């Protein structure tokens, strides 16, 4: 989805503010939000990491950008625990003593691409180091790990990684499939007219996002 989380290359943001000697958590509730998410994913297995990522992605963009990391996490955890029926919104609001805002529901069509739309991926990697690829330009309405700033752009395979669960399926359904992923290197001058020619960007891409081309 083209949500507020897909920040790579977006402009208008100011300086990166650094806090020296920053602790892991600033407030006890932040630690609690982190631990509750770990419990829900790792022990209760109520949802997985891709569904978690998508829960924060579904926050209203205005809210997402204002919220801290742990506010987004606590919102995602709570939204998913309600969606998966662990407790109700009414229960949590009564217990918390106030309004508890949630992320928006999963978009219609998020569970696509369906079988036919995802290429059949074999046991061996399709691409080799040095291959030229172009990234799929079509956006999906659900979870994806293909950054928007790469859509329609050309890159070169730098490394072959192992297989990983296809996020588009894992976030939205019990169906799972594993695909090879690759470290793919991109030239910033193709991405942005003022891209730094002495810099490259290396992105881990799933095979489904990649299309072979003959020339770089």
């Amino acid at each position: 989805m083209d949500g507020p989380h897909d920040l790579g290359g977006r402009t208008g943001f100011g300086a990166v503010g650094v806090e020296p000697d920053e602790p892991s958590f600033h407030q006890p509730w932040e630690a609690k939000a982190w631990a509750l998410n770990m419990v829900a994913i790792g022990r209760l297995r109520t949802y997985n990491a891709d569904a978690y990522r998508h829960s924060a992605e579904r926050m209203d963009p205005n809210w997402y950008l204002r919220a801290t990391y742990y506010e987004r996490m606590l919102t995602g955890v709570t939204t998913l625990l309600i969606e998966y029926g662990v407790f109700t919104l009414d229960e949590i609001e009564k217990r918390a003593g106030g309004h508890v805002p949630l992320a928006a529901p999963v978009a219609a069509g998020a569970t696509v691409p369906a079988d036919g739309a995802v290429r059949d991926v074999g046991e061996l990697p399709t691409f080799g180091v040095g291959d030229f690829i172009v990234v799929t330009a079509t956006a999906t309405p659900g979870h994806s790990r293909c950054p928007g700033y790469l859509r329609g752009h050309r890159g070169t395979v730098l490394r072959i990684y192992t297989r990983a669960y296809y996020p588009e399926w894992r976030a939205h359904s019990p169906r799972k499939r594993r695909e090879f992923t690759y470290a793919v290197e991109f030239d910033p001058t193709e991405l942005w007219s003022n891209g730094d020619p002495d810099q490259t960007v290396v992105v881990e891409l799933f095979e489904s996002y990649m299309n072979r081309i003959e020339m770089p």
Partner: protein
Amino acid sequence: MTGDQPSSGRERATLADHAAAVESLLIEKGLLGPDDVPEMIAGVDDELAPENGARVVARAWVDPGFRNRLLHDATAAAGELGIKGPEGRQMIALENTDEVHNVIVCTQCSCTAWPLIGLPPDWYKSPAYRARVVREARTVLSEMGLDLPPSVHIRVWDTSGDSRYVVVPQRPGGTEQFSEDELATLVSRESLIGVARAGHLLL
């Protein structure tokens, strides 16, 4: 309609009350013991800490065999030192050289190699860092105090899959007599992410 504004006019619960309510409901429903969350939190600072990354880097600086194993499989190499944990199943070490400087980001969420870098700091999770470093790394690094010569190529690694990266900074000059433990003290969390050199404090 901005997501967090109650349509009912009811006051929003504080984040502390909200988090406590989630924990309390999970305990009441038998899904969680009362000590579980406190115990998990208590382990964070030891298990998930940049000091782990610093030990790994210092070892790589003094032990060429370990360096090679680290660059081949950082998860296994960290395991030799007893370092492991969540978000650490597929760790990859990126070695800085005179020619190439590596920087890590996660533009879409904030994935990090927790066992080696610790839970990531706020600046790493900020929209500004996530948006800007892929597009203008040299400027962002310079603003953060790291001026790289134009001859150094910057590689920005966007953590968009299951791989979790850690940067192996260059060993500072004049440290030939340092012990491994002393070397480790030179390796900050920022240098493991690639926004600082080893031996340099950020800001």
